[in-house]
């Protein structure tokens, strides 16, 4: 019987990712390149926003992955707390810096886009504010990991922090909504009828989203593998000392 939990075994995880990681990494580079080149050079300019609209091909996927990375950390933390699989805790740890960088990319591209469109680099808009707050949560999570020496204690504490932080991050999002009316447009993509984005934009955008998702996956896999190797090394050194 094969089940998902088999990959919780570090050895099995390493063996699978041995061949999976190169494939994912190459696919990530190829698909992101296709999506970005398609988006930047083979789409028409928007009739009002001109060519600045093309920053959407970085902005939206990065913002999406910034949130998805946190959700993935939340799930991984839950798996760690409930089933005590070390790979899960290490994957959550590896995802945090990637998510933080995605958040920064989202904020910076947003600022670059906002300058010509809204006439300002930054506005205390609910979406922007919530994103900045999400970045603070990432910082706290990463700092917590790096502050603790014992890996199991660190995994436990950061997992609880991730759970509590998620609740407060959602609360902050709605608090920010309540606090100020925004400049930011509504959701860029929606399944509701009457969506405003044309397929000429949507197709490359979806390609970029898949590409960014694969980049995230590749970086998390690589980070988790590094963590597993570092742990194994520590165990070997400790065994050497005992002998």
């Amino acid at each position, binding site marked *: 019987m094969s089940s998902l939990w088999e990959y919780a075994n570090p050895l099995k995880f390493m063996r699978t990712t041995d061949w999976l990681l190169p494939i994912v990494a190459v696919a990530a580079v190829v698909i992101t390149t296709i999506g970005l080149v398609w988006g930047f050079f083979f789409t028409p300019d928007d009739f009002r926003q001109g060519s600045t609209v093309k920053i959407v091909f970085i902005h939206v996927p990065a913002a999406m992955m910034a949130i998805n990375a946190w959700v993935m950390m939340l799930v991984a933390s839950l798996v760690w707390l409930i089933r005590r699989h070390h790979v899960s805790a290490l994957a959550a740890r590896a995802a945090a810096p990637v998510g933080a960088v995605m958040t920064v990319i989202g904020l910076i591209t947003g600022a670059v886009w906002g300058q010509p469109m809204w006439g300002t680099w930054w506005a205390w808009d609910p979406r922007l504010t919530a994103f900045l707050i999400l970045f*603070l949560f990432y910082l706290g999570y990463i700092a917590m990991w790096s502050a603790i020496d014992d890996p199991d*204690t660190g995994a436990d504490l950061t997992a609880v922090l991730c759970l509590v932080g998620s609740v*407060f991050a959602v609360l902050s999002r709605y608090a920010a909504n*309540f606090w100020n009316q925004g400049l930011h447009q509504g959701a860029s993509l929606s399944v509701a009828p009457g969506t405003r984005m044309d397929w000429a934009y949507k197709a490359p955008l979806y390609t970029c989203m898949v590409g960014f998702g694969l980049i995230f996956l590749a970086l998390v896999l690589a980070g988790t593998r590094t963590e597993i190797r570092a742990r194994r090394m520590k165990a070997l050194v400790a065994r050497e000392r005992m002998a």
Partner: protein
Amino acid sequence: MIALLIRDMRLAFRAGGGFGLGLAFFLILAVLVPLGVGPDRTTLALIAPGILWVGALLACLLSLDRIFALDYEDGSLDLLATAPVPLEGVVSIKALAHWLTTGVPLVLVSPVLGLLLSLPVPAYGWLLLSLMLGTPALSVIGTFGAALTVGLKRGGLLLSLLVLPLYIPTLVFGAEVVSRGAQGLAVGTPLALLAGITAGAVALLPFASAYVIRINLR
């Protein structure tokens, strides 16, 4: 549990307990802001609700690391964890003691500081009410942060990095109550949301804090 409450409050009030430090910090902040912004009354009145709430938040933060650090160092926390009283109860009592020695004094002096910042007259009642409703949440959330960092040697800076983002919803709704009150608008919605956050935090976070302390004592 009552004995624990009395013990914690005594420790806080006595010399070196840090009682009054938070208050002094709150006062200094209310003096520094007009010095930095200028004495213009309309400007001050506009920013007073936010300044008072941010000040209360930071003053609360100052005394957080005292909640568990000393008990952890001298081993009383281990005793408390093995005592017949559930650790969740111990954590709640410690948060209550923190609130009584830090939150309540802040609430009581806030009108005086409001005077310094020329807070509009109709806002005073809302300031008192919102701080009274909001500071328990600050204490409980702070206790969770203190529990997370209790095993660390120099956890103070990390503590503020962890706790301040968690304070955001409380701050937003609390300050909103006061500034709406100052303009004579309806305050029902933010007040209810503030009370909701406090109630939720008081009910749920002690479990998380106790869980985290058990991890740290392992």
